[in-house]
């Protein structure tokens, strides 16, 4: 067992956890932040993407202890106050989700993408290539691309 301490969505949390506990399990089971999902076991689907110290991370691929001391933001922490993050709003306005299961990971990846690449540099090809690590089975990606284009503009 190890003691971990991190900031999750702006709140400091401390827990004793098993060394083998994944960050996604920590978020889901210890903190009840069930918006972060597990869709595979090979770090392929991206349903579990969160931000760790400002960067998109597949939380199924990192141990909770590795995130100790870090600042973690999950989908639950993306909106500020009552206001949706512009990327969240863009997914709704552009019908960028259907069943909603991949959506948290998609949105967290999209926000990171805009932060990394810059809203002005996001053409369709770049968006599609950067979604390589996020699988959606419902939307065919068409409206996810539209959502990210719109969300990027709104974030600029």
């Amino acid at each position: 067992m190890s003691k971990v301490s991190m900031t999750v969505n702006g709140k400091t949390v401390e827990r004793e956890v098993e060394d083998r506990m994944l960050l996604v399990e920590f978020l889901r089971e210890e903190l009840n932040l069930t918006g972060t999902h597990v869709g595979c076991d090979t770090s392929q689907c991206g349903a579990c993407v969160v931000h760790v110290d400002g960067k998109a991370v597949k939380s199924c691929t990192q141990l909770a202890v590795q995130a100790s001391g870090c600042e973690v933001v999950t989908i639950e922490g993306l909106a500020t106050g009552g206001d949706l993050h512009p990327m969240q709003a863009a997914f709704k306005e552009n019908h960028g989700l259907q069943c909603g299961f991949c959506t948290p990971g998609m949105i967290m990846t999209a926000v990171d993408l805009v932060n990394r690449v810059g809203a002005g540099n996001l053409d369709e090809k770049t968006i599609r290539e950067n979604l390589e690590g996020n699988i959606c089975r419902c939307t065919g990606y068409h409206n996810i691309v539209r959502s990210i284009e719109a969300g990027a503009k709104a974030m600029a």
Partner: protein
Amino acid sequence: MGVEGIGARVLRKEDKRFITGKGRYTDDFKMAGMHYAAFVRSPHAHAKIRGIDKSAAEAMPGVVGVLDGKQLTGDGIGNLICGWMIHSKDGSPMNMGAWSAIATEHVRYVGDAAAVVVADTLENARAAAEAVVIDYEELPHVIRAVDALKDGAPQLHPEAKGNLIYDWEIGEKDATEQAIAGAAHVTEMEIVNNRLSPNPMEPRAALANYDEADDHFTLYTTSQNPHVARLVLSAFYQVAPEHKLRVIAPDVGGGFGSKIYIYPEEIVCLWASKRLGVPVKWTSDRTEAFLTDAHGRDHVSKARIGFDKDGKIVGFSIDTIANIGAYMSLFSSSVPTYLYATLLSGQYNIANIHCNVRTVYTNTAPVDAYRGAGRPEATYLVERIMETAAREMGMDPAELRRRNFVSEFPHQTPVIMCYDAGDYNATLDAALKAADYANIGKRKEEAKARGKLRGIGLSCYIEACGIAPSAAVGSLGAGVGLWESGEIRVNPVGTVEILTGSHSHGQGHETTFAQLVNERFGLPVDNVQVIHGDTDKVQFGMGTYGSRSGAVGMSALVKALDKVEAKAKKIAAHLMEADEGDIVIEDGEVKVAGTDRKLGWHEVCLAAYTGHNLPQGMEPGLKETAFYDPTNFTFPAGTYVCEVEVDPETGKTEVIQFVAADDFGVIVNPMIVEGQVHGGITQGIGQALLENVIYDDNGQLLTASYMDYAMPRADDVPSYKLSTHETVCPGNPMGMKGCGEAGAIGSPPALINAITDAIGNNNLTMPATPARVWALINGK
């Protein structure tokens, strides 16, 4: 009527919880004292269980039970069933082998459940599952359906001699053979429809709790049809009588057919919860999903089609072998028969069709309906052979199709279906125009100059949705009726609750169903709540699959709304001393036509509930229920055009453009319909280019992760060009046809036809991997 009514692009009411991480999927639920199940699964394709040594596992930390199939059957839990009886052409009923939720004596595919461990944590359950020692005696196995039919093939079930479940036919064999014999041109093809894994992004899960005090079970599960789940769990598996079992399908992360069926794991969680006295949760990991979720497709067919000298089809003969896997899943028998062969007439006027289907057991995961279910297999066959025939005859593939289109309705095909409405030229014309089909020659030249091979392919699909008239499917062997129920509950303040037996797992029912109320009464959709997925709340329903929630589910709501409207008008007429026939309800007001007399909708609703001043003899309240049984299938149809560019150096295919022109009848929310088409086409492109379930010769599943099974990613597909062209469906009150499966049905042949056009070789099998395409280009 209202701005949020039929035809409006209303943004989805359900989105907020999903985009903020507040969706509630089965694995998100916890119960006090909850324990976790881990299944011990067969590593062998076929084996006899000689013995199970549980001692080490039982001694491990946190373990409360290690249970096997003999204990399960000993407690009276029944075998899994297939709910659709098919008779062979000799009249004999299908040969169904026994399927216990946990194997008792034999395991029959890799992943078959052989035992289950329940422990206090998931880690402890999994560790103990590893410690269960099962003494297997390996038996010979068979993986491919064609091999299973051979003399001397390993036998899976004593009930199915020669592994044959049924040998079924439809249509007139002799007439078809005579017509083909007299044809001016005959095209023959052997066509394989590759095995797929549905892969909703949310893996299956179950959380079961037995309340001893009330002798009552609760099951949270990833189901497309919780009421059917409860019925089957009660009536066939004897888990509990229906009134002692509540099934909740909360937010469900996609289904695509794979969450229709009742699987062993739900049964085991319920049973184990009672036997062990703890709530039991099981959540599939992705590898388990690949191993045990029902697969789709897996047909091998030989087809011959004959044309007269004018290019008119005279006869079409098909011989299909369908792989059903190791056990018969809930609707598996219907997929290669009534959901498949009845669509082999395509959009065409064909006088003679005969199809023979042999469905066989193999040592692979069960195969059942996956998005489209039989109709993609039919469409792929029809549209590949039409395109190939046109090329062989030197005709424009679009022209050949046009010459054979059904143009008068109703049209009775020789394979049961009676098409009620459509305009196949309209969708063909629209698709060709949008794709700039006329100038493909120039684009081919331009690509050739760059060393690339460009090709274009068509697919004119038809499907049957709105599943289905209960008496009709009953006569064809279905064990259930396929109506739907709906309830409209108007509250005293005028807000509305819709209770529906349909289930939304991505389709947006919470929005589109609310749009019906806006259309009818002018109430904002925010004043309407859609309630579904809980057997304690909704009386009964048949669930969501087969693109039925619009044509059947909404039709039930329309009927219930009719009753609510009639009663509200009676009350309003009484209150305003007007004639009932003069009452109109619009924009949230109840008015006397031609006067300035009116009441707020909420005033009429409140009057219904106070009961102070109602018409003589009227019951208080404003709540109505309706059951709707469709009168016919619905027949969405359209044309898809795909243009590709193949790199001859690598065999890699790039989809340059994909055009869809669909006729879905009346559309409630175009935004949601487009989303359904986008997703469906992408799954079809996945089948055609990327996806393939592969078992090796030992029966091991090679494609059991996203590292090995190629799911379509964002950079594998283009943006799509869509249009819709409405002919009103006469079979239901709203004129709807359904849109959920069309994309997956229509797209694979368009894409393969495009590649075969590009490379000049019709002999291509899905998925069109670079290796396969390169081999054909290079004559390997």
